[in-house]
């Protein structure tokens, strides 16, 4: 165990409710001054993060997991000094680079070349460093031909590539990364993950937020699970991710009742494996996908549409089920598939429900991840989404002529 490069001790961040991401108009302040004596002095505070303590040793890759609003991003913002803590402290030994967004500092009017320098500088690179790695950055981004075109003429994908190329060539001793790998096509994600592995193997420390549990499994040895702003669990990535996924499977009934809409969807899982992932080695053939929902009203003629999307948001399949009679209470919808012929990758379920008055749309989380140990690293975008069983035959001329007759 080497010395800790990040030491976090009882770190906490408090926001005043409603104040976050809000500025004031002078008028508000003036009106507050006048109404203050007549109002009860009641201030609502929200601890976005409280009492978080942990050490990270040099060279380790630590995954941060938790639901939205659990404080992951706040923690990264505190460690990267974007905002200051309310309580506790953190100690960091070394140069910190933070990557909370791809394309930080990009400006649409500037050219690709200019943006490389600008974004690099904003992310903390020295000009000499950028000069030295310029060619590598350009090669990584695959946008050589457009270097002197204004960024606003780039496609979104190209902008992402360029942005990540700059970010991937940061050389801080400690790298804080927030969910930025979720963008871009799968092939490019692979490239980025590879880059991150390379970075960590050179002795750099990475703190990494992701909702994609596969990435955490692949990249991290250790994971920290945050829930409601405090530490839930800290330990080996495999154990923590399993525990997290197991909990995500259990629908929180109170939460479902609190959400708006006549019917609310909770979680989904594959019944056979009780998980959100499908391992191609251990599982094949028939499987049942179960969606949990809670109806708050009587629904006479409901209609349910379930959509399966690829990570590029392409609709791969959808099913429509009409004339559903639903009484208030918990419900389960089962979809039994003969097989789910998909290649390894990240997919997502979306449910849309028409209750007779309005459409309720719900993007199911977490994603469906299809994994395979045998070819985890070699699939490319050319492989596509469908994993169909196909027999291939090579025929010579004589065979064909026989057939023609």
């Amino acid at each position: 165990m080497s010395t800790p490069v990040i030491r976090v001790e009882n770190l906490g961040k408090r926001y005043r409710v409603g104040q976050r991401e809000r500025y004031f108009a002078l008028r508000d302040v003036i009106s507050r001054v006048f109404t203050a004596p007549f109002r009860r002095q009641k201030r609502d505070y929200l601890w976005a993060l409280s009492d978080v303590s942990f050490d990270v040793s040099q060279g380790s890759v630590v995954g941060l997991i938790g639901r939205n609003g659990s404080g992951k991003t706040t923690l990264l913002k505190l460690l990267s000094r974007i905002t200051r803590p309310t309580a506790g402290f953190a100690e960091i030994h070394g140069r910190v680079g933070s990557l909370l967004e791809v394309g930080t500092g990009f400006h649409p009017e500037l050219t690709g070349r200019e943006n490389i320098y600008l974004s690099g500088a904003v992310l903390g690179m020295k000009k000499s460093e950028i000069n030295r790695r310029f060619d590598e950055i350009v090669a990584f981004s695959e946008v050589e031909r457009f270097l002197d075109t204004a960024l606003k003429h780039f496609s979104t994908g190209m902008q992402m590539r360029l942005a990540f190329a700059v970010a991937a060539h940061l050389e801080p001793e400690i790298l804080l990364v927030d969910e930025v790998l979720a963008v871009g096509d799968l092939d490019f994600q692979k490239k980025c993950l590879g880059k991150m592995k390379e970075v960590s193997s050179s002795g750099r420390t990475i703190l990494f937020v992701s909702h994609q549990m596969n990435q955490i499994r692949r990249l991290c040895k250790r994971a920290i699970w945050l829930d409601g702003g405090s530490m839930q669990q800290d330990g080996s990535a495999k154990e923590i991710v399993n525990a997290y996924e197991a909990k995500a499977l259990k629908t929180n009934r109170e939460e479902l009742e609190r959400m708006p809409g006549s019917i609310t969807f909770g979680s989904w899982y594959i019944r056979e494996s009780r998980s959100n992932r499908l391992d191609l080695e251990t599982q094949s053939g028939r499987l049942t996908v179960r969606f949990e929902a809670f109806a708050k009203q009587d629904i006479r003629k409901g209609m349910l549409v379930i959509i399966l999307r690829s990570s590029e948001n392409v609709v791969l399949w959808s099913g429509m089920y009409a004339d559903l009679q639903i009484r208030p209470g918990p419900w389960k919808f089962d979809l039994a598939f003969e097989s789910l012929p998909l290649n390894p990758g990240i997919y997502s379920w979306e449910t849309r429900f028409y209750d007779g008055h309005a459409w309720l749309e719900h993007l199911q989380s977490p994603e469906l991840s299809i994994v395979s140990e045998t070819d985890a690293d070699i699939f490319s975008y050319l492989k596509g989404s469908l994993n169909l069983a196909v027999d291939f035959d090579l025929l010579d001329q004589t065979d064909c002529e026989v057939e023609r007759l």
Partner: protein
Amino acid sequence: MSTGALPEINSTSKPFVLRITPPSGWCEAPFKELWAYRELLYFIVWRDIKIRYKQTAIGAAWAIIQPFLTMLVFTLFFGKLAHVPSEGMPYPIFYYSALLPWMYFATSLQNATNTIVENQRVITKVYFPRIALPLAAVFGSLVDFGISFLMFIALVLYYGIRPASSIFLFPVFLLLALGTSLGVGLWLSALNAIYRDVRYVVPFLVQFWMFASPVAYPSSLVPEKWRWLYGINPMAGVIEGFRWSLVGRGDPPGRMVFVSAVVVVLILAGGIAFFQRMETTVADVV
């Protein structure tokens, strides 16, 4: 896919330890950190200038057209018609030498006020000393100043004015102009980050301030006894300093400039302190 190997980290040398703590009661001086981020400061200035001139049709020419037209109007109305005294200088020189620092001050304020809000995306995503933003706005305006200064040189040549030895004090007054712009700019940018109304106040403030400064008239209109008091408006000291050092006519504005310099130091120190206090919360508020 594998690119050049990253240099290994030497784990034995740990010179740099960063402590992240809740903001303490008062501010920390930003100078050391600003020095570490000097390259970023340069890049922000470079970006701002590049964008400003990319989006305008005649680009840099604006930096000359604005003060030149203003000078013409002032010369005609205040000079030829109202016969405002001009310390024995030709009216165009008299007005242009005052408009030089004045336009610089006005542009700096406008750019500095909006800079925190305009850069809010970057501010909420990455750390750097925020004071670099208003600083870059004030430095960036120096480019416009330099361009309009070319026009002044042309005017001086046209009127055949030979610079006196007072020209050697010009850098002092330029520094004073920079300090005034930065000091007021820091206050306005910090205030605008918290209260968006400030941005609407600035054009009015600039106009108001111009009438309170000796741009259209000489400070000699103020009675001798009270003239040092006029220096409380730091732009009064700056403008009279510019006129005297560049043209070399009249008496050196000694006491007034001294008062202005003291006021600038106060505004600047207060501005830095106020800005640093605002900085600890800005990412939560913008």
